[in-house]
């Protein structure tokens, strides 16, 4: 083992053993009343156990022996075989002392020590177990049948419940990017595994099919499988008597379905209302696609008759939309009525299908209509006049149009559609030779198919031009004509080649940009069986959605690549800082100054040198300025890479709002604004839960039932809005409703009832301060637990989540008028502008937005007001505490300040409140890339994250809100202390 590693191990051993010793000391000397006894015993056991393991690893076997005995005793206490009385605790404390000694000597000598034999003997006695004996090995048990294990079932239900929300994201494929898809798939994969492990095999199959559907991005299949998931989890919920999230999923699905149906039928109704407009192919295609989607949804909600009718109707739309057909408007009107009926019935609880009789009759009429119309249509289509473009694409002159009757047009189309047939143009002069004329007419009647003919005047004579179709090659036809007209003066033939773009002088590039599926050739519809076969596949381009402009400009880059990129820029920022430090290094200057002192200022060489040095320094500073400016720009550009419109977040809410409002019998208009504001992609995901919670709160508690609203003189329909406003590098997301507002008095009373504050104290608080209790852990004013809120997850969780994003949340509310929560967030969660200060040796970063300013005060400025030290700032009293005191750091220096010199005070703000923090040293402002902090550190109050400084020192980033709270606590403590 390398000596470096060995040193590391000893160091870690020392730290860890020390921690255990301190903990054991505390736990052993605590009286049993100090907390849950079982927890204390378990912690004691674990600590001795860990010490034993650590000692063993470090070859400290004497220490291991002592720890092992202590562990054995605690093991017996843990199982209830003995109590942790004073008689037991005393020798354990002795064991602890011995362990400390052995650990110290071990670290000093790097060698095993000697455990006191009498202590070992006494511990053995207490442990009631000779050191050598072990409990007899029991035979290994059979594997647990997992699904019979209630705890496992409970865990599974929890997983299911938690996963459900993620699974439903698949309902909205449009807003599901690659990362989102992966997260949905991951969740489904885990649930599938859990189902397998618990032997819920059909459920596992459902989840597997769901994943396949997700991979294929097959919206219908996803919907179908999610429906099965809802059914399966409802069953598991009933089985276990726990909430497996089935209700949530079922609600969301029902809502999704209802939305598809409602939106679909509104649009379909509008389209059906105008028979003339439906003759437009794109409108008919849109309607057909719409009807198919609705039919798929009706299948899922088990309304088969409605679904079948819509499919027939869709088929009709695809095949025929003859606005001029006499039956057409009547049929459409009937279909419209049926659709309206269906919409009403499907929205009922439970949903109702259409009457069988009515559907059958209408379906029959539609089918017959299609049969008739398609037959007419095929004929009609063929006779439709050709366009100039169609003709020239065939190599024919547009003048020909005049000579194409409907019949000859149909012939021409038939010839074009027949791959065997080719078109030729024959020019004949039939007025000179009767032989040629009769031979030609005979040839025309037997060997080729004439489509049309027209006269042509050439050199004062009337020639006959004939358009013919023949399967034969040009040479064979020319030979036949030569047989009729051996002289070759009267009959000529040429092939009508489809237009050659080069010959026609058309730029080939135009052809390239044409959609390949839009040929100018007439397309003859294939005459499929004229029955209304359901599930005709929707057209390749559903007209519902405009084609996304996926030009060459869009790149998909995994998030981690950008994070790596940001990290590199971070590295550049550090280098730029180094350059600045180098440019400002005054050592060269001072060396020059002392040289000048020795040689005299007049020395010409020295003066030149000084100038050169000064010049060089200025260049460096210039370079530094330019570099940091361009690094700034680079970083801004990089930040842009990570942002998406906040719309992607907002769009996830309308559905939920509508459903919640419906469930609670409230009427809510949902509005969003500022969807174009762009925020960090990672924040979209992190904001979802807090926003969802607040939206639920707003509907549950904020918005009144319509009757109450009207009684209060407000419109029955409430408005709930989500708004985003960008301010420089921050974004404010506001959730506002015009509901009943927060009853400050109710909040105060509840806070008192929950013991968060004393009655008298509470009466002294301002309304703002009272409302802050909304964010207290476990606080909820809801008197009833509704389905969606009041589950114990409160605004404290919301605030924590937002704080983790570097944001803050504020409330505006007026009783009777409504409530607005404003969430203030950085555009990027990764970068934080901070003020760097130093307390003792530790560099701390205070998020810049919490800092109003930094002021200097002299000792005389400090005054004691009602127990607290304060200074006067802008004619207002500012309470000041030492930052070290607030954070519980060991503080040096005098307090309150005395003696000469300035004292630096950071004015910390939170909302409209201010408090001063006295610091030892102000370093600078700096943008820090927040790094994930060690979980242990993250739990320390006041710590928001960590970052690194140029010199590699770790800087602790303080959490602004928490810092404010800690400072306020320190201030109160000071006030309570005797003066």
């Amino acid at each position: 083992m390398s000596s470096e590693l060995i040193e590391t191990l000893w160091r870690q051993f020392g730290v860890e053993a020390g921690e255990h010793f301190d903990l054991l000391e505390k736990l052993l000397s605590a009286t049993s009343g100090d907390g849950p006894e079982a927890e204390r015993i378990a912690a004691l056991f674990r600590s001795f156990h860990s010490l034993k393991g650590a000692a063993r690893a470090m070859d400290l076997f004497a220490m291991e022996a002592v720890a092992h005995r202590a562990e054995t005793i605690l093991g017996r206490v843990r199982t209830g075989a003995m109590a942790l009385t004073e008689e037991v605790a005393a020798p354990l404390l002795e064991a602890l002392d011995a362990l400390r000694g052995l650990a110290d000597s071990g670290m000093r000598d790097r060698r095993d020590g000697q455990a006191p034999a009498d202590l070992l003997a006494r511990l053995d006695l207490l442990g009631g177990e000779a050191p050598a004996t072990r409990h007899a090995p029991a035979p290994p048990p059979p594997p647990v049948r997992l699904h019979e294990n209630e705890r496992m079932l409970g865990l599974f239900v929890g997983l299911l419940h938690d996963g459900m929300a993620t699974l439903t994201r698949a309902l909205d494929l449009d807003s599901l990017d690659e990362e989102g898809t992966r997260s949905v798939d991951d969740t489904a994969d885990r649930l599938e595994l859990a189902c397998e492990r618990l032997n819920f095999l059909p459920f596992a199959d459902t989840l597997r099919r769901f994943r396949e559907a997700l991979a294929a991005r097959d919206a219908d299949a996803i919907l179908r499988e999610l429906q099965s998931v809802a059914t399966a989890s409802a069953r598991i919920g009933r089985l276990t008597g726990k909430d497996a999230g089935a209700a949530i999923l079922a609600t969301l699905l029902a809502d999704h379905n209802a939305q598809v149906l409602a939106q679909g039928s509104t649009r379909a109704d509008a389209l059906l209302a105008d028979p003339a407009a439906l003759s437009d192919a794109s409108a008919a295609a849109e309607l057909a696609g719409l009807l198919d989607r609705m039919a798929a949804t009706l299948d899922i909600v088990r309304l088969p008759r409605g679904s079948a009718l819509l499919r027939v109707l869709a088929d009709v739309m695809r095949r025929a939309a003859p606005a001029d057909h006499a039956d057409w408007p009547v049929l459409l009107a009937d279909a419209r009525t049926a659709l309206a009926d269906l919409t009403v019935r499907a929205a009922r609880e439970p949903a109702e299908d259409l009457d069988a009789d009515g559907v059958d009759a209408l379906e029959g009429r539609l089918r017959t209509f299609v049969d008739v119309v398609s037959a007419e249509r095929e004929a009609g289509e063929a006779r439709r006049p050709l366009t100039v473009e169609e003709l020239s694409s065939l190599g024919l002159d547009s003048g020909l149009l005049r000579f194409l009757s409907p019949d000859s047009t149909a012939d021409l189309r038939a010839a074009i559609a027949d791959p065997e047939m080719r078109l030729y143009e024959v020019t004949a002069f039939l007025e000179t030779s009767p032989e040629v004329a009769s031979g030609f007419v005979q040839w025309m009647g037997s060997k080729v198919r004439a489509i049309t003919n027209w006269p042509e005047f050439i050199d004062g004579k009337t020639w006959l031009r004939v358009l013919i179709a023949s399967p034969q090659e040009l040479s064979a036809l020319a030979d036949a004509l030569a047989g009729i007209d051996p002289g070759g003066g009267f009959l000529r033939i040429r092939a009508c080649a489809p237009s050659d773009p080069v010959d026609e002088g058309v730029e080939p590039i135009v052809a390239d940009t044409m959609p390949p599926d839009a040929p100018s050739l007439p397309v003859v519809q294939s005459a499929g069986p004229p029955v209304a076969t359901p599930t005709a596949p929707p057209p390749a381009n559903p007209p519902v959605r405009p084609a996304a402009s996926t030009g060459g400009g869009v790149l998909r880059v995994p998030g981690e690549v950008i994070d790596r990129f940001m990290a590199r820029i971070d590295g550049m920022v550090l280098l730029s800082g180094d350059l600045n430090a180098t440019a400002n290094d005054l050592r060269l200057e001072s060396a020059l100054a002392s040289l000048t002192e020795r040689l005299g200022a007049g020395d010409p060489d020295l003066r030149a040198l000084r100038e050169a040095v000064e010049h060089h320094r200025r260049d460096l500073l210039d370079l530094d300025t330019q570099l940091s400016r361009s690094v700034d720009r680079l970083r801004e550009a990089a930040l842009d890479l990570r942002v998406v419109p906040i719309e992607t977040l907002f769009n996830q809410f309308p559905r939920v709002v509508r459903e919640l409002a419906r469930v609670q019998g409230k009427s809510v208009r949902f509005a969003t604004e500022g969807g174009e504001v762009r925020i960090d992609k990672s924040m979209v995901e992190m904001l979802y839960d807090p926003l969802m919670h607040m939206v639920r709160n707003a509907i549950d508690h904020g918005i009144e039932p319509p009757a109450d609203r009207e009684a209060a003189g407000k419109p029955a329909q409430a408005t709930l809005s989500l708004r985003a406003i960008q301010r420089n590098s921050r974004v404010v997301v506001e959730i506002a409703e015009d509901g009943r507002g927060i009853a400050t008095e109710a909040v105060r009373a509840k806070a008192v009832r929950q013991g968060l504050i004393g009655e008298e104290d509470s009466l002294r608080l301002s309304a703002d301060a009272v409302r802050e209790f909304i964010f207290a852990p476990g606080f909820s004013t809801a008197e009833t637990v509704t389905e969606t809120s009041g589950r114990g997850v409160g605004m404290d969780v919301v605030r924590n989540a937002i704080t983790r994003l570097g944001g803050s949340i504020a409330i505006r509310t007026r009783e009777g008028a409504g409530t607005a929560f404003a969430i203030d967030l950085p555009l990027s969660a990764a970068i934080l502008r901070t003020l760097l200060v130093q307390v003792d040796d530790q560099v701390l970063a205070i998020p810049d937005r919490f800092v109003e300013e930094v002021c200097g005060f002299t000792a005389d400025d400090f005054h004691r007001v009602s127990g607290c030290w304060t200074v006067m700032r802008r004619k207002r009293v500012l309470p000041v505490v030492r930052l070290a005191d607030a954070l519980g750091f060991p503080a040096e220096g005098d307090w309150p300040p005395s003696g000469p010199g300035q004292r630096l005070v950071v004015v910390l703000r939170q909302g409209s409140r201010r408090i001063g923090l006295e610091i030892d040293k102000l370093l600078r402002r700096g943008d820090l890339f927040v790094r994930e902090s060690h979980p242990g550190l993250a739990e320390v109050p006041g710590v928001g994250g960590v970052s690194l400084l140029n010199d590699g020192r770790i800087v602790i980033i303080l959490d602004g809100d928490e810092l404010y709270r800690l400072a306020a606590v320190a201030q109160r403590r000071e006030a309570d202390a005797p003066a």
Partner: protein
Amino acid sequence: MAKPTILLVDDSVLMRTIIGDIVRADDELSLVGAAENGKVALEMVKSLKPDIVLLDIEMPEMSGLEVMEHLSLMSRAKVIIISSVAQVGSPEANEARALGAVEIIAKPSGTMSLDLAHKKGHDIVAAIRRAAGLAPPAKP
């Protein structure tokens, strides 16, 4: 073939260093992460999807056995228990077995005298290689 990925879960920094060092001695194994408690471990399992989890039993907040219950429902990783509590035949060992632990081995001891060859032949490496279906390590 990709190297088997391993996640190490132990509340002791010292143990993580020692066991990590032993695992890293084998070039055919890839240690992808180390977690200091059960909750972190479950999160890391979700994101890292390791093939093998080396799991301590005695941990604060969430014991190794509780972690195993969760793991059995959310991960295909094979679990190797590294604990001196779980002696063969002890109730903990039996429960771990029942929950699907593929191996139960003791915490390393006498690490100070380990050289590279010893590390490669270590019980922990041997257990991982068995679980991953690799050939047994060469005995020192």
